[in-house]
């Protein structure tokens, strides 16, 4: 008997669906730009996704374009579905903001030649697909100056997500910043092996605090490490987004993304018809990245030091990975007269730590 009910319901549903199909077209494009975003985390994660979400809102304000988004989209085929749905809803410009969206984005770009795609943090491009990222090591270096001046125990903790070039070059840049003002300080690294899992991030931070660190920084997506630092009366440097409210007694500053700068620039080019797919990487000079304003918790002498280094980074006199740079065992990795550029820092050769880092990178194939 129940079979009958369900089959009747199914027939009704199918009949209704036929009615709907008649009236439903695919994405309407009337020459207007409609921008869709695909996010890995929730829009209020206090980190990576929220920084992109803020960028989206900045774009909406500046150019008065319509925007849409999908949050908490898993990497892999789910992300392609989200992209398709955004296109079906009328989006003709798509930004996908996690590494694992790279191949689905590329596939969608091939299937939708009229839609323009942007993929964040990957390395693939197409006729209608750009990729974009930034020289995060610049503000990382600046944040290292703040940490180096603040630490009393000369032990600084670094909670890091994965042993990938992006994260490793951040640790190295931070350590170089620390040592530029405090050659005695060491940076202790702990891998959280997650992008966003507050409990694991916090546990890693607590382990570092137990180990004597009095300043903690991180490469993850949540604010858990600042909270851990505050609970122990230690200090914290954030990442992604300026979030002093998360732990006002601990928080000093953070290297932050201003994605809106790039979003406005690209969408404007699309509207003006001058857009071309490219691999983009910005830094402090372009306004894509910066160090958030120092709070009152930050050491007072840091302000001038940071300002000076920031100016030198902008005018090119200070390059973060300029030789000579030694690795953990004291071998020269970057000889005098050589400087690693963005591509070098994101390549698989970035599999070593600079001197002053205490931690291990598991050998990669």
């Amino acid at each position, binding site marked *: *008997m129940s079979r009958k009910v369900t089959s009747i319901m199914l027939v009704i549903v199918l009949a209704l*669906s036929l009615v709907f*199909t008649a009236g439903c077209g695919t994405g309407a494009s009337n020459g207007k730009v409609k921008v869709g975003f695909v996010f890995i985390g*929730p829009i209020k994660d206090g980190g990576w996704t929220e920084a992109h979400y803020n960028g989206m809102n900045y774009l909406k304000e500046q150019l008065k374009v319509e925007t849409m988004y*999908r949050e908490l989209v898993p990497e892999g085929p789910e992300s392609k579905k989200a992209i398709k*749905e955004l296109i079906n809803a009328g989006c003709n410009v798509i930004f996908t903001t996690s590494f694992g969206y790279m191949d689905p984005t590329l596939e969608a770009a091939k299937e939708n030649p009229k839609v323009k795609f942007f993929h964040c943090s990957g390395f693939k491009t197409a006729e209608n697909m750009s990729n974009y990222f930034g020289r995060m090591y610049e503000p990382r270096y600046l944040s290292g100056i703040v940490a180096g001046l603040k630490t009393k125990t000369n032990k600084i903790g670094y909670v890091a997500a*994965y042993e*990938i*070039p992006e994260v490793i070059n951040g640790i190295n840049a931070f350590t170089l910043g620390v040592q530029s003002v405090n050659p005695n300080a060491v940076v202790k690294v702990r891998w959280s092996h997650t992008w966003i899992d507050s409990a694991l991030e916090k546990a890693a931070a607590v382990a570092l605090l137990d180990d004597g660190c009095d300043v903690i920084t991180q490469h993850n997506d949540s604010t858990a490490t600042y909270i851990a630092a505050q609970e122990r009366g230690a200090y914290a440097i954030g990442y992604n987004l300026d979030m002093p409210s998360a732990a006002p007694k601990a928080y000093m500053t953070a290297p932050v993304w201003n994605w809106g700068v790039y979003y406005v620039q690209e969408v404007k080019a699309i509207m003006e018809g001058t857009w071309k797919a490219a691999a983009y990487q910005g830094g402090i000079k372009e306004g894509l990245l910066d160090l958030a304003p120092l709070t009152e918790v930050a050491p007072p002498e840091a302000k001038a030091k940071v300002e000076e280094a920031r100016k030198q980074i902008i005018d090119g006199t200070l390059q973060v990975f300029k030789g000579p740079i030694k690795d953990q065992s004291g071998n020269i990795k970057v000889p005098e007269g050589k400087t690693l550029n963005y591509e070098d820092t994101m390549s698989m050769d970035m599999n070593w730590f600079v001197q002053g880092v205490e931690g291990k990178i598991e050998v990669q194939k």
Partner: protein
Amino acid sequence: MLRISKRTDLTKKQYIQLRLAAVIMALFTSGIFILIMGQNPAAIYFAMLQGAFGSFYGLRETIIMTIPLVITSLGISTAFKMKFWNIGAEGQIYMGAFAASYFALNHHDMPKPFLLLVMAAASIAGGGLWALIPGFFKARFGTNETLFTLMMNYIAIKWITYLQYGPWKDPNAKGFPIIAAFKETAILPGFMGIHIGLIIALALVALMHIFMYHTKKGYEISVIGESENTARYAGMNVKKIIVAAILLSGGLCGLAGMIQASGVHGTLSVDVSGGIGYTAIITTWLGQLSPALIMLVSFLFAALVQGGSYIQTVFQIPQAAASILQGMILFFVLGSEFFIQYKINFKKEGI
């Protein structure tokens, strides 16, 4: 005073009334929630139907989601029929996908049809053996299979995580923890964007229907479920039947894993199941362990998920809100089960 007793007298009319009442209450309660969010309930419901069935694209996504749900539910129902509470479908899916991926990644130079058959066989073996471990402990030591199969899920997921971040990591991915995409020879063929898993699922529904209702082996499984002693009296080899049924149960779940890896994801990853093994428990139960009903329920469930995904895009509502809507609808539909099984009598105390 409240008294709850088992129903035996439910008429067809009452049954339909109860189910309809559940659906209406679900729509009504969700409607209040939608109103609080500042949206129009009718528009949201309409959009959910539209998202699931209203375009070729939507319908296709609904069908693609239905395929693993049906196959996994068939697997689970085999175990449930014997009252072996297999909560481990999730892990069996992963282990099936793992076994299939081993051949996909290492032997992709085999001819395509042959490789796909080998992958399917490997996935059935992988899922089946994974299910057999708790089955063995239950038969040998009387362990609780509900907890055992559940715990096995976490081991399987962590095993895949280990492979993805360790030995199977794609060396060409610039250090990012992903497993290399399957070569073309290891990808299930498809038609109009729907992979061949659809045919496999439909065939399995028919086969399982025949097996469960029209063969001796299928009958034996349900007898064991009703009473092991009866089965023993009737001269059945209970242990052997249990082992075979558990292998079949886990094997089907493993096959679902291979289909997801090869037909949908194009590789192995920790997202390859994404909770199908748990969702399938609901569809199995709602489908009353009957293959045909399972197919229907899985299709409707996939439509609910697909519709939920669609309204997120169209109405820009948070993912959590869409999940709450799905949860509320499920709550009422599952809740009506109680009133179908039991009746409540209100009686004054002392009388």
